[in-house]
């Protein structure tokens, strides 16, 4: 079981649960005019049944590509994928395109950031929902439509039967994202990959969608890979977190541990630079200087060393640090760990001076 305080999830997650997806040594590169760009460099993780794994990092850090590559949703060539990714007994990387078609949408569901690009504007949402179910589950048109109505109801679309023949533009942004989730779930996938699924939404709608996915996850037992740059969202939903930088996992830990005791200078820097509600400070934020590197011009040594204010010595500039287990289940790719006191000071928990207002009473406090 995860050691998360607060409400314990009612599904079985963590070490004891069955591994549904096991990724080893995943490398993704692209051929470019300026040579090969290494976008993902040797990623390993296990995803357990019912678990939520968050992948965080800046744009270009390899979050999306590392998951798109699992079912070759990137153009190959110029892309190249090596390593293994076992979904149950099947190694996805070794599958042919034909075989992958049966995995995508069926065993692995996707929810992307922009519902307008994942939905086809010229087809009704009913057609887009039933297509996969007829194809993958072999349902008749009538059965698929019945199930589509059920799914739309489940994701909270009012009067779903009437909306089946509507087109995407007839829905609001939040409702469209619900439709995309319904499609992602339509074939009861073992794994749902949500890539910045709530980034374009208002926080109020985001909260609705997060609750919805958590409920469905508890019901169906699926595992979720949640890709986001929003550390607040991660804090709310993740069992475990992978922090990516320049194509590598730089830190991996249980969510509670990662936020309370981050150890990689990048993770610490990221947390320290966040404005946090309830932090009364008004001065400068502890920004990380500089920019992340382009995948075509990765620095030698540690990918983060040009921006690292923690140590960044000769060794950091020349030698690539290995991913080390510094505590049970806590992996860090750095020669130097940020000491406890400094790391705790960066955490939001230590910076919050005013507690969130109590909202249990209706109306005015």
């Amino acid at each position: 079981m995860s050691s998360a305080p607060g409400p314990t999830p009612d599904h079985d997650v963590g070490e004891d649960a069955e591994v549904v997806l096991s990724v080893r040594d995943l490398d993704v590169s692209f051929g470019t005019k300026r040579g090969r760009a290494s976008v993902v460099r040797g990623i390993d993780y296990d995803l357990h049944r019912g678990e939520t794994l968050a992948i965080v990092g800046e744009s270009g850090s390899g979050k999306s590509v590392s998951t798109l590559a699992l079912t070759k949703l990137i153009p190959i060539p110029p892309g190249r994928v090596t390593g293994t990714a076992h979904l149950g007994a099947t190694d996805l990387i070794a599958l042919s395109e034909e075989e992958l078609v049966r995995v995508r949408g069926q065993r692995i569901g996707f929810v992307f950031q922009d519902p307008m690009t994942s939905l086809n504007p010229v087809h009704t949402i009913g057609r887009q929902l039933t297509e996969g179910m007829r194809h993958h589950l072999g349902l008749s048109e009538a059965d698929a439509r019945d199930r589509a109505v059920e799914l739309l109801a489940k994701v909270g679309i009012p009067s779903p039967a009437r909306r089946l023949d509507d087109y995407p533009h007839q829905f609001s942004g939040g409702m469209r994202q619900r439709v995309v989730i319904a499609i992602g779930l339509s074939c009861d996938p073992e794994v749902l990959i949500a890539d910045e699924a709530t980034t374009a939404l208002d926080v109020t709608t985001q909260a609705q969608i997060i609750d919805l996915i958590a409920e469905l996850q508890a019901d169906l037992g699926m595992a979720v890979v949640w890709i986001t740059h929003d550390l607040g969202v991660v804090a709310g939903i993740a069992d475990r977190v992978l922090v990516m930088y320049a194509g590598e996992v730089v830190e991996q830990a249980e969510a509670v541990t990662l936020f309370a005791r981050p150890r990689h200078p990048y993770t610490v820097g990221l947390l320290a630079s966040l404005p946090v509600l309830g932090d009364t400070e008004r001065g400068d934020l502890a920004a990380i200087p500089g920019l992340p590197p382009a995948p075509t011009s990765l620095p030698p040594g540690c990918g983060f060393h040009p921006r690292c204010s923690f140590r960044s010595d000769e060794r950091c500039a020349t030698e690539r640090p290995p991913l080390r287990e510094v505590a049970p289940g806590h992996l860090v790719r750095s020669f130097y760990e940020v000491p406890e006191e400094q790391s705790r000071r960066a955490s939001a928990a230590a910076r919050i001076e005013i507690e969130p207002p109590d909202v249990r009473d209706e109306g005015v406090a």
Partner: protein
Amino acid sequence: MSTALLEVEDLHVHFSVGRGRDRQTVRAVDGVSLRLERGQTLGLVGESGCGKTTTGLALLRLVEPTSGRVVFDGTDVRALSKRDLRAWRRRAAMIFQDPYASLDPRLPVGESIGEALDIHGLHQGKQARRDRIGHLLERCGLHPRVADRYPHEFSGGQRQRIGIARALACEPDFIVCDEPIAALDVSIQAQVMNLLNELQQDLGLAYLFIAHDLAAVQHVCDRIAVMYLGRIVEEAERLDLYREPQHPYTQALLSAIPIPDPVRERERERIRLEGDVPSPIDPPSGCRFRTRCRAVFDTCERIDPALQEVTDDHRAACLLHGEVGTPVTS
């Protein structure tokens, strides 16, 4: 009472959409009153479509207000002639979420900044102009040499710095910052917020900071105004708003902001707001928030609540604080 730098009273911006019989009015901004002191930052928050951008544009007359008063440092902005408006514009600038939109992709960025100088006849003469452009870039953390490069050669964060340099070109007292960090990576957001902060300290700028990220708003703003369907529903000092939100919408909005601390985040109670914001074409009668409000009671559809002072220097528009407002006629 001191005179504020900017005073806005009952601002309306309505758009007509459709033709003939289908003609409808979008009440994008529908009675907004605001006050901003010199050198201070006022945050404007609310869900998308609630009218934040339109308010910002209307303050600078980049869209024409339908009615209301905008007084900037004693000048009635709506009364300015076309010519006077041009001169006045020097004092107020705007930066956008996507600096691409404000930079001409075919112009070297130095020229985009130069254009802003030329419009107001500032720093004329080749050398003076070039020096000024270089200085502005440097002020925003970029090397003067980058003036010759094109927008696509920069990262999002660098482009936002260029957008800021361009806004500073006319030496304004006031800048509308519309979601200036929303499109940036987390590690870059802090850099840009620090830059805005530093410029404010050094140049005495006042900002209207439009954003949906309440944590960022709380960090950079002196006061915060919460907007819903074209109206300000609450306005208070930044920590006061967080400590004791008085409007049910503000309470719901605050409870939806994720806090990057798993312990607090998982223990917290949330107010679930169901559904979407109603259309600004046909807002609900009485209180506009009543269709989503968990505290709604029968009077809410009969009185349109006025923004009133509910505690010291803290205003809210909700009938729970007294039935003050405009009765609905029909």
